C-alpha cells in the first residue's frame, strides 16, 4: 500500500540518472534440452525505459518471467539495489518493487476500478472494507496519471487503453519501482498509445524504471532509452537510444538482411481459379449497412493477390464469406468454373478452396491435440480407408506437412503450445495446404509472428503460387503488400477502392485506403 509520505519520497528523491537499479547477470534457463536463455546480462536503469527487442522465441518473455518471479532461472544472478535476490513468486518480486503487466490484462472486468486496484489487499475497516479510503487513494492515483477515470466505473466499461492505465495504477499502488510491460500497445489505438507514452514519460520522471517489450519497433524507438536485442536466447546487442536506429535493431534481431520477397515469376499464370462475383455481406447489428459491399474479384492459378485495408474495411468478412463460414446476401463464388456458393465450408475444402483464419489460437489450432493431429485434421479423408484411418498414411501426411512448411518441432507428437508463434502459424497453414487446395485464402497470415517467420511464410506462399496455387492474403501492414503480391487490392468500407500492381508505392496504397499518409 502506498502512503502519502512514500509517494512524496519517490517524487522528490534525487537519483543518479544512469544508476543501475537491477542487474541480471548470466541468466540461463533451459527446459529439458531447449536452452531458452543462454547467459544473458540485462541491466535496468533507474528512471529509464529499457526495451527488449527480439523475434518470437528469442527469449524475451522468458527473461521477463524470470525478472518478475513467474519462473526461476536455471542459473545466474539477479542483483537489486546492490543485493543479490531471488524471487520464488510474483508476490515476492512485487514486494521488492517489480511488477509485470501482461499482454492480456489481469483485471476483473465485472469489478470497479477501485476494487481492481485493491484486489487481494483490501483496506480493512471495523465494518469490513474501507471503501471510502480505497476510493480516495484510487482517485489520487488516477489524478497522478492524469487520467480522469472515476474509481467506481466498471472495468468492462473502459476502453482498452484506459484498462491498461488501471493496471499501471495498480502496479504503482504497490510501490513498484520497476514496471515490466509486455506488448502494451498491441491492442491500442494511436491516441491511446499517445496517452500511454505520456504516462510512461511521467513515470520515468518519478524514477520508475520501465522494461518494455514490443513488436512495433518504430513505436518502441519513440519511447526507449536503452535497447537490448535478444536472438536465440543470447543477447546480441546493447546500445543507448542515441546510437541506434530501426535498421540497427532489425539487423541485430534477424542476424542478416532479409526481405519479404518479390512476386514469383518465370511461369505463366493459369486460368481463373477463383471468381468472386458481387459478394455482399450485411451487417447483422446495423440494418442496411454492408460489411462487404458487392465485391467482385478474379484470381488466376499461380497468382498472388494481396488485400490491403484498415480495420473494419471488410477484409476478414470477405474472406470468411468466400470460404463459406459467413452467410452472404448476394453474389456467387465460382471455383474453377463451378459455382460453390451453396456448398458448406467442408465441401468447399474438398473442392480445393481453403481459409487460413486470422486468429490462430481461436480459430486455427486445437490446443488439446498434438502438432501432428492438428496438421492432419483437415485431410482426414486422405488417410482413411473404409471406416478406419491408417496410421502409416497419416504419418506420411504429417511428415510431408512438417517438411513442406518447415515447422521446427520435435515431431508430430509435440504439444501445440511447445511451438513458437511463427511455427504455430505454419501449422495452421500447413494443415490447410495438406488438403492440396487450388485456392488458399489467408487472413492476416503475418499477425503476431516475427519478421523471420513472416519471410518464411511469404516464401512458402510464393513457392505454392509457382506450382499453380492461387493465393489471396490480407494484411494491414503496407510493407507486406509490396512483397510477393502480383496484385494489390485496397478495400475500404466493404468495397474495393483501388487496385495496384507490384510497383506501387506505400504512399499510393495508404492514400487509397483512406489512411493518413505518415511521413
Amino acid at each position: 500500500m502506498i502512503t502519502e509520505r512514500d509517494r512524496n519520497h519517490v517524487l522528490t528523491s534525487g537519483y543518479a540518472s544512469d544508476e543501475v537499479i537491477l542487474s541480471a547477470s548470466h541468466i540461463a534457463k533451459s527446459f529439458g534440452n531447449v536452452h531458452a536463455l543462454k547467459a544473458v546480462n540485462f541491466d535496468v536503469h533507474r528512471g529509464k525505459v529499457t526495451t527488449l527487442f527480439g523475434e518470437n522465441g528469442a527469449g524475451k518473455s522468458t527473461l521477463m518471467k524470470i525478472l518478475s518471479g513467474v519462473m526461476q532461472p536455471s542459473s545466474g544472478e539477479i542483483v537489486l539495489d546492490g543485493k543479490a535476490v531471488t524471487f520464488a513468486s510474483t508476490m515476492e518480486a512485487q514486494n521488492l518493487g517489480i511488477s509485470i503487466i501482461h499482454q492480456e490484462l489481469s483485471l476483473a472486468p465485472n469489478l470497479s476500478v477501485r476494487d481492481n486496484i485493491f484486489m487481494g489487499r483490501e483496506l480493512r475497516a471495523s465494518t469490513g472494507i474501507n471503501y471510502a479510503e480505497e476510493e480516495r487513494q484510487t482517485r489520487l492515483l488516477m489524478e497522478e496519471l492524469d487520467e480522469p477515470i472515476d474509481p467506481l466505473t466498471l472495468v468492462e466499461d473502459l476502453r482498452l487503453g484506459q484498462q491498461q492505465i488501471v493496471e499501471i495504477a495498480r502496479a504503482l499502488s504497490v510501490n513498484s519501482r520497476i514496471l515490466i510491460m509486455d506488448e502494451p500497445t498491441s491492442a491500442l489505438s494511436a491516441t491511446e498509445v499517445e496517452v500511454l507514452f505520456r504516462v510512461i514519460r511521467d513515470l520515468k520522471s518519478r524514477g520508475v524504471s520501465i522494461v518494455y517489450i514490443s513488436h512495433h519497433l518504430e513505436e518502441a524507438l519513440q519511447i526507449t532509452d536503452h535497447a537490448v536485442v535478444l536472438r536465440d536466447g543470447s543477447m546480441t546487442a546493447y546500445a543507448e537510444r542515441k546510437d541506434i536506429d530501426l535498421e540497427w535493431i532489425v539487423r541485430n534481431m534477424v542476424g542478416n538482411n532479409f526481405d519479404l520477397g518479390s512476386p514469383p515469376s518465370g511461369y505463366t499464370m493459369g486460368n481463373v481459379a477463383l471468381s468472386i462475383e458481387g459478394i455482399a455481406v450485411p451487417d447483422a447489428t446495423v440494418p442496411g449497412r454492408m460489411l462487404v459491399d458487392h465485391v467482385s474479384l478474379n484470381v488466376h492459378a499461380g497468382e498472388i493477390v494481396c488485400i490491403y485495408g484498415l480495420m473494419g474495411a471488410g477484409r476478414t468478412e470477405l474472406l470468411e464469406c468466400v470460404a463459406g463460414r459467413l452467410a452472404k446476401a448476394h453474389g456467387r463464388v465460382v471455383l474453377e468454373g463451378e459455382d460453390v456458393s451453396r456448398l458448406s465450408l467442408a465441401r468447399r475444402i474438398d473442392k480445393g478452396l481453403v481459409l487460413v483464419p486470422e486468429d490462430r489460437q481461436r480459430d486455427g489450432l486445437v490446443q488439446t491435440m498434438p502438432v501432428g493431429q492438428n496438421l492432419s485434421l483437415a485431410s482426414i479423408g486422405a488417410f482413411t480407408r473404409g471406416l478406419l484411418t491408417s496410421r502409416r498414411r497419416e504419418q506420411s501426411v504429417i511428415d510431408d506437412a512438417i517438411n513442406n512448411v518447415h515447422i521446427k518441432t520435435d515431431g508430430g507428437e509435440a504439444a501445440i503450445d511447445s511451438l513458437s508463434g511463427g511455427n504455430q502459424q505454419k501449422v495452421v497453414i500447413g494443415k490447410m495446404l495438406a488438403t492440396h487446395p487450388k485456392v488458399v485464402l489467408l487472413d492476416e497470415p503475418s499477425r503476431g509472428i516475427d519478421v523471420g517467420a513472416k519471410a518464411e511464410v511469404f516464401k512458402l506462399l510464393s513457392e505454392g503460387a509457382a506450382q499453380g496455387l492461387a493465393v489471396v492474403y490480407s494484411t494491414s501492414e503496407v510493407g507486406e503488400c509490396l512483397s510477393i503480391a502480383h496484385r494489390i487490392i485496397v478495400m475500404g468500407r466493404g468495397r474495393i477502392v483501388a487496385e495496384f500492381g507490384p510497383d506501387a508505392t506505400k504512399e499510393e496504397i495508404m492514400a487509397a485506403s483512406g489512411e493518413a499518409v505518415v511521413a
Partner: protein
Amino acid sequence: MSDTSQATTSAQVSRGGNGKFDVTRLLLEGRAFFALIAIIVIFSILSPAYFSVNNFLTMSSHVSIFALLSLGMLLVILTGGIDLSVGSTLAFAGVFAGFLLQGIPLEFFGVVVYPPVWVVVILTCALGAFVGAINGVLVAYFKVPAFVATLGMLYVARGVALLMTDGLTYNNLGGSPELGNTGFDWLGFNRLLGIPIGVWIMAVVAIVCLLALTRTPFGRWVYSTGGNARAAELSGVPVKRVQVAVYVLSGICAAIAGLVLSSQLTSAGPTAGTTYELTAIAGVVIGGAALTGGRGNVRGTLLGAFVIGFLSDGLVIIGVSSYWQTVFTGTVIVLAVLLNSIQYSGRKKRSDTSNDTTSSSQQGAQTKAEAPVVESAAGKPASQS
C-alpha cells in the same frame, strides 16, 4: 482390456512429453489403475469372500451398467458437453422394453402383438437414440447449453417412464414360449465362456468406442470438437453433426444399460437408475477426462467405472452401512478430480514454460479474443472451470 487400449496408452504417454521416467507423472497418469489395485488389495484383506473369481464376475456385471453409461458419457464429455439424462433414459428404456414384452394391443385389428426379444432390443435402442437425438439437436442447433438441455431431458424421460407404468414396475419380463418372446433374461443371467453377458456387452461397446475414437475420422472429429470447435469447423469437421451423434450414442448406451439392468433385476421400474448419470460422470472423471472437452480415453473411463463399482460392492461385502458407502464414494470422486486438476495444471505449466508464446494461448480458444483473460499470478489462466 489393457491389451485393447495399448494404442491409446502409448499415444497418451508420448503425447505427454519428454519420455523421461517420472514417478509423479506415472502415478497421475495411472491413478485409476493404482486406485483399482488398492481397492482390490484392501478389500481382499478385509474380506476373504472378496477375492474370488465368482465375486469378481458378479461385481463386473454390476460394473457393466456403469461402464456402459460412462462410455456414452465419455463421448459427450470429449466434445465438451455433458449428458445428465442417461439415468432417466436407462429407466425409460427399461420400462419401454417391459411394455413391449407385455405385448402391444392393436385395438384397431383387435389383436395383441408380442414382438420377439431381438425386436424389443432394437426398438429400445432406437428409443435411446431418439432421446439422445433430441438432446443433440437442442445442444447443436438450438444452442441450448448441454447442462440445461439434458437436465430437462432428465425430468422428461423419467416422467414419461412413470406415466407409462403409472408408477408401477413390470415384473413379468420372462415372456412365454407360446408367444415366442422368451429370452430376455439371457442378457442378465446367462454366461458366455463363464463370463456374464453384461460384461461381454460392455467389452464390445468399449472396443467399438475405442476403435471409433482412435482409428476413425469420427473419433478425430470428436476430439477436435471438444478441443476447439471453431478451429475444427474451419478445418471441415461437421461439428454440429458430431455433437448430435455423441448424444445419440450416449442415448443408445443408456438404453443398452437399461436393457441389461432390467434383465439382471428381472423387473423394469420407472425409478431405476436414479442418480446413475452422476455415477457415469464420476467414472469418466476418475478416468482422467477433462470436463472442458478434448481430453480423455476409453481405457481410463473403464478403469473409472471399475473403481466405482468395485469400491461400492466391496463396501457392501465387508458390511459397511450404506450411508458410509456414499461418503466413501464421494471422497474417491473428489480425490480423482483433485488429481485431475493437478495433472492439467502441471501439464499447463510445463508447456507454458517451454516457449515464448503468451500464457493465455490455450485459453484464447475459449474466451473472446478481445476480452481480458483473468490470469493468476503464475500466469496460468484462472478462468478454467
